[in-house]
């Protein structure tokens, strides 16, 4: 008998807000978090569009010896995780006395690497890189920092699954709890926003160049989309066994019903249709629900031509013609990459809890594939109790989560 897995806390640090209430309001009003960053132009970027995000000053919350090992995305993840634990009613005493796990999506840490290499080249003295550089540079930097700061004692590792990292982290955390290996796992995803981290991504012409209209640049499913806009931040959900949550008297927000996954085994950057379709079908099968119970689909759709088209086809394959509302919150946030799978669960949760579906802003004209989907461009009032969230990544990694209100 598998354990039921519930969500008891959420926290987010995003271009749509630093609290759940701020983010809820931004989603509802269709706010865009995208800006034009002139510094990127000076660096030779093809597109200077990016999400707007400030690095938090944590001097009051953390000691120097805690902060020195944290790159920007670990700071975002700290803020999101502290808030999520607070909502879940978890204090340090609980963390000290229970084996709480940590699975977090992260797939790069470019800025510290660049700075250390610059120092080595200029100074010819590795000592001058400082003690934080190695810990900030590793892919597992978020989990190593959070594990030490919150003194976590369960599983502790980073999930690197490209733009599906955050979603896989939640799915894998749910599997551990379902099988009784962990009672609680802190799950999430983090994404650095500095230019170094995505300069080479810009170099393969993946980004929108609609620089004259930053807020209109990210337009998933729209006929006139011309690429994605990079974003970032961090999002954390507290996963817990249903029994544990009841025992603690914790706020039970939702249940993770299904996790589906697949690999395309195909092209490194171009997604196909079969892989995502398989991921969706697996999630639905594992959730054990009738597909008509799903009241909202949060698409991965990043605003690229091939990606959005093939996802639209996969969703159509599974759901049929215009049977459920589908939107991509990336129209507001840009592509939050390693964070996206986790943040989009929170965006969808906020919609589910507040009875609305945020419009897929900038969706003005469908193309041949998206024309078969029901995509509201403006926010609609709708109560739904179950949603499906897709996340796909480079190398053809796919993840799908199905979550039900409680």
């Amino acid at each position, binding site marked *: 008998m598998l354990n039921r897995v519930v969500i008891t806390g959420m926290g987010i640090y995003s271009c749509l807000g630093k609290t759940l209430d701020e983010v809820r309001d931004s989603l509802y009003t269709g706010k865009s978090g995208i800006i034009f960053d002139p510094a990127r132009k000076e660096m030779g970027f093809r597109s200077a569009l990016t999400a707007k995000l400030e690095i938090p000053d944590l001097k009051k919350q953390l000691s120097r*010896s805690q902060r*020195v090992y944290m790159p920007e995305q670990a700071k975002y993840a700290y803020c999101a995780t502290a808030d999520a634990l607070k909502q879940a009613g978890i204090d340090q005493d609980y963390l000290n006395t229970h084996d709480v796990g940590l699975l977090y999506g992260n797939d790069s840490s470019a800025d510290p690497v660049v700075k250390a290499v610059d120092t080595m080249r200029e100074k010819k003295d590795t*000592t001058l*890189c400082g003690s934080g550089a190695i810990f900030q540079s590793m892919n597992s930097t978020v989990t190593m920092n959070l594990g030490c700061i919150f003194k976590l004692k369960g599983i502790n590792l980073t999930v690197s699954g490209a733009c599906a990292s955050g979603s896989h982290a939640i799915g894998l955390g749910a599997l551990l709890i379902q099988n009784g290996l962990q009672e609680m796992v802190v799950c999430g995803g983090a994404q650095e926003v500095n230019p170094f981290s995505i300069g080479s991504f810009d170099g393969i012409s993946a980004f929108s160049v609609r620089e004259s209209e930053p807020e209109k640049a990210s337009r998933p499913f729209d006929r006139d989309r011309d690429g994605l806009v990079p974003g970032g931040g961090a999002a954390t959900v507290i996963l817990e066994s249903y029994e544990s949550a009841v025992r603690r008297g914790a706020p039970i927000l939702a249940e993770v019903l299904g996790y589906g996954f697949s690999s395309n085994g195909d092209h490194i950057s171009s997604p196909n249709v079969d892989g995502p379709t398989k991921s969706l079908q697996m999630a639905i099968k594992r959730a054990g629900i009738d597909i008509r119970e799903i009241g909202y689909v949060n698409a991965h759709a990043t605003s690229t031509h091939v990606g959005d088209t093939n996802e639209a086809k996969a969703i159509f394959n599974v759901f049929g013609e215009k049977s459920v509302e589908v939107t991509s919150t990336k129209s507001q946030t840009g592509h939050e990459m390693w964070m996206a799978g986790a943040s989009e669960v929170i965006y969808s949760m906020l919609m589910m809890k507040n009875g609305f579906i945020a419009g897929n802003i900038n969706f003005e004209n469908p193309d041949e594939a998206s024309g078969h989907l029901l995509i509201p461009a403006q926010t609609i009032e709708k109560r739904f109790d179950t949603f499906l969230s897709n996340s796909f990544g480079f190398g053809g990694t796919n993840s799908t989560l199905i979550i039900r209100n409680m």
Partner: protein
Amino acid sequence: MIMEKQELIEKINAALAEEFEIDVEDITPEGDIKATLELDSLSLVDMVALVESESGVKIKGSDVAQIKTFGALYDYLTEHQN
């Protein structure tokens, strides 16, 4: 450029106080560096890197362990300035 010793002391003290988040008044010539700055084996690296950057003096790895007090550090730096 060779700094006068007092100028060097003030520059080093200010940089250390800011980086390790203590009051500059807490730094005294006879004070123990590790205890005052609350250094562990990792943050000791940051102290050395900061002092090297501020003074332009490279502290040999084998010498670091011998420099216990701020006074000893100032002496080392002034002796090795060139």
